């Protein structure tokens, strides 16, 4: 079955059992179970922060699956983007549920039914498409070259080193430079837009508290409030 079984000669039965186990498959099952269990728990939990925790668990187990498959770059990406991104989600969850009003989110029964139907339909589609692929039906480990991030990086700047060299008659293989640039410009636009929306706005009309605090005429809006960073809410002593 695997090279582990070849060094079985003269080993006691429990050891033989241990050696005969396909550890790769076992670890795959373990990570897959954690991922699926975490996903189910996200749907079943009421508390937003615990939901985020289960989501993190599920996503981290997915990263573990990537590492198990030897895709270190994708696994690290998974950790960085998804698990790290859930961090921000968690922060929002904490901010929302710091008041006791929203600690428990109850889902109506009708919503549960609709969500269940939707999830079952999606699952059916995914399973059907996964089973329909011929080469995925039997277990097997592809013999590939050692996975490195460098071909991806080179391809991102337009040089393909992950494929056989192009011959004279074949079309030249293009890298991912154009998609990469489009995505990065898109992200830049999104960031600029977010900064524009979140900027400290200058008030047209003074706040009532400003009118109360001073005699008329109403003073111009204080510059300090416009310059205050958005994070000042975290100081706690604010306003």
């Amino acid at each position, binding site marked *: 079955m695997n*090279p*582990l079984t070849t*060094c*079985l000669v003269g*080993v006691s039965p429990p*050891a033989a059992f*241990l*050696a005969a*186990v396909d*550890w790769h498959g076992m670890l795959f099952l373990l990570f897959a179970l954690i991922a699926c269990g975490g996903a189910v728990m996200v749907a079943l939990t009421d*508390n937003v*922060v*615990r939901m985020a*925790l289960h989501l*993190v668990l599920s996503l981290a187990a997915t990263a573990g699956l990537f590492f198990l498959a030897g895709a*270190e*770059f994708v*696994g*690290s*990406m998974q*950790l*960085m983007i998804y*698990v*790290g991104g859930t*961090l*921000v989600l*968690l*922060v929002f969850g*904490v*901010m929302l*549920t*710091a008041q006791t009003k929203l600690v428990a989110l109850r889902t109506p029964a009708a919503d549960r039914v609709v969500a269940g139907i939707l999830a079952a339909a999606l699952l059916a589609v995914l399973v059907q498409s996964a089973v329909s692929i011929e080469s995925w039906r039997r277990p097997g480990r592809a*013999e590939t*070259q*050692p*996975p*490195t*991030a*460098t071909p991806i990086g080179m391809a991102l700047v337009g*040089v393909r*080193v992950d494929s*056989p*060299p192009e011959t004279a008659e074949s079309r030249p293989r293009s890298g991912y430079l154009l998609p990469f640039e489009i995505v990065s410009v898109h992200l830049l636009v999104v960031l600029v837009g977010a900064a524009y929306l979140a900027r400290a706005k200058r008030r047209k009309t003074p706040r009532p508290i400003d009118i109360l605090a001073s005699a008329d005429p109403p003073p111009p809006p204080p510059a300090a409030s416009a310059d*205050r*960073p958005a*994070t*000042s809410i*975290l*100081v*706690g002593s604010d306003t």
Partner: protein
Amino acid sequence: MADFLIDTIGMPAWLAWATTAGVAAFLILNVIAGGALVFIWAERKIAARIQDRLGPTRTGGRFGWLQSLADGIKLLAKEDLMPEGADTLLFRLAPYVSFCASFCAFIALPFAFDVVGQRLNVGVFFVIAVLGLEVFGVILAGYASASKWSLFGAMREAAQVVSYEVPLGMCVVVPVMLAGSMDLVTIGEKQAGWMTNWYLFHDPFTFVIFWVYFTCAVASVNRAPFDLAEAESELVAGFHTEYSGLRWSFFFMAEYGSMFLVSGLAAILFLGGWNGPIPVAELLGWSDGVAGKAPYAVRLLGCGNLLLKASAGVLLMMWIRWTLPRLRIDQVMTTCLKYCTPIAAVMFAGVMLWQLFLPGGLTAAGRPRAAAVREGWLESSSGSPAADNVGSDRIHRAQIAGVAE
């Protein structure tokens, strides 16, 4: 090591792999725990000296060097309290999340050539990604404690860590670019030889960016002057206000582990890793400069080098902590967004231009040329045990050579 156990002793493969993993985990755990003991003692002594005191003097003899052990026993004996409104599961879980994140990052940190838990092709990226997860434990602790001080501390920490990941990532990219690899082992080995080969002295931009990196590293592990998450004078003790006993000590072990980790990362990325300032082993003829063939004694020497450099980094952090006052949250954000990020960006561009026009640098002696650096990833990948298809590798090499021309 697993290969050695299988081939020489004749151990079954599963046992060999399990032993190897166990030994690696044991060693890393002891580096963190033992390191924390030593560093807590050092912190007490340094703080005392900076404040013109003596610090611990009695426990364990002359310098009070057993003080941390006494502290540990005291922590074990402490009552384990939990606030009434606490979220029990999360409250219990939070310290372990913090500690596990710190511990996991050590897996990819090499202590000498190939003396590493698991050599990852994207080692730097992995370490940075996992290091960012430590804040999860802090946020969970702050939320689950049901105390507003804890919550404020956790929120501050979240804002700070998320912000400082940007300049930190930018600083880390520079050595990656110079080495042409994200593999920490390769990056360290590229700086072999004399001290002038260290990336710190590669060009003026890297010299500046090292200090930016160090600032961001201090901020990302929440040490003073960036320790707003536990600001004693404002927030009682911040996110660990409600913790006591062993759980509290887990937070501390995670903190000291992270300090050691970012210092070790700084040593590998900028300070030559396990290569000493003078290539002693080569001069004495113990090794012929090819790291993969160096005897184990030389690697042990390298381990000592790296531990020394990382400890120096931790001591520097302590010095900073007891010298500078704590920043306000808006000052922390200003430091990150208005200073660290632009400086890092400009230095990044500078290193890029330097690499383009002066690839050898001013101290070119002994450093591999740019073309050789470009091919580095091929050497490193063909050196790994799974590289069996030499044919495609040769094709790649030819292609890269074509690109380089």
